[in-house]
């Protein structure tokens, strides 16, 4: 088994601020993901990384940057926080097997004042 940790658990920012969310996994998985979860909109893919040194844009990448520092870690940066924004950001990982199960972290809840 393994675990995914996300830091921080809660993130409060100011409008226009650059904010960074971190994710670590010890599954030894190759592929990692960042999703945004909004009520009524489901899980939307922001960025993913198939393997170390790879970075792929998802459907919601505008306004975000990502970095795969090493196999076990994947960071997401909100480049300019939007006022009154509230969402949960979920990190996930999976093995390189096709159509493998994705394992999700506990999430970071973002609030922008």
């Amino acid at each position, binding site marked *: 088994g393994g675990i995914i940790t996300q830091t921080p658990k809660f993130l409060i920012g100011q409008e226009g601020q650059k904010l960074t969310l971190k994710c670590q996994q010890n599954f030894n998985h190759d592929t990692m993901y960042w999703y945004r979860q909004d009520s009524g909109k489901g*899980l939307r893919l922001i960025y993913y990384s198939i393997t170390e040194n790879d970075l792929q844009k998802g459907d919601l990448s505008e306004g975000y940057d990502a970095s795969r520092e090493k196999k076990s870690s994947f960071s997401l940066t909100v480049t300019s926080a939007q006022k009154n924004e509230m969402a949960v950001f979920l990190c996930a990982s999976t093995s390189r097997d096709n159509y493998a*199960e*994705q394992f*999700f972290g506990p999430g970071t809840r973002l609030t922008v004042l």
Partner: protein
Amino acid sequence: GDSVTQTEGLVTLTEGLPVMLNCTYQTIYSNPFLFWYVQHLNESPRLLLKSFTDNKRTEHQGFHATLHKSSSSFHLQKSSAQLSDSALYYCALSVGMGYKLTFGTGTSLLVDP
């Protein structure tokens, strides 16, 4: 592009009644892989079941679903709802190399005593 439609945002039913959550998808690929993920309150999404075989029933933890390529559907069913089934259910689609999941908007299932 690929898409997943879950028509019900909220399904409320009484314990003991059957459950059916709808999921349809659109893709140009002929070999889609379909998933159901479940997210209980204050938890992360986790895989419930998955399938890529046309017209074959897949079961897990009392739930079942059958992929029907002819109607592009993968509805989730259970014969008798339990209180513990109250959760958010996501249908998801994967095609091609299988790295990327496209999620529906989710259906909240609320089971009353």
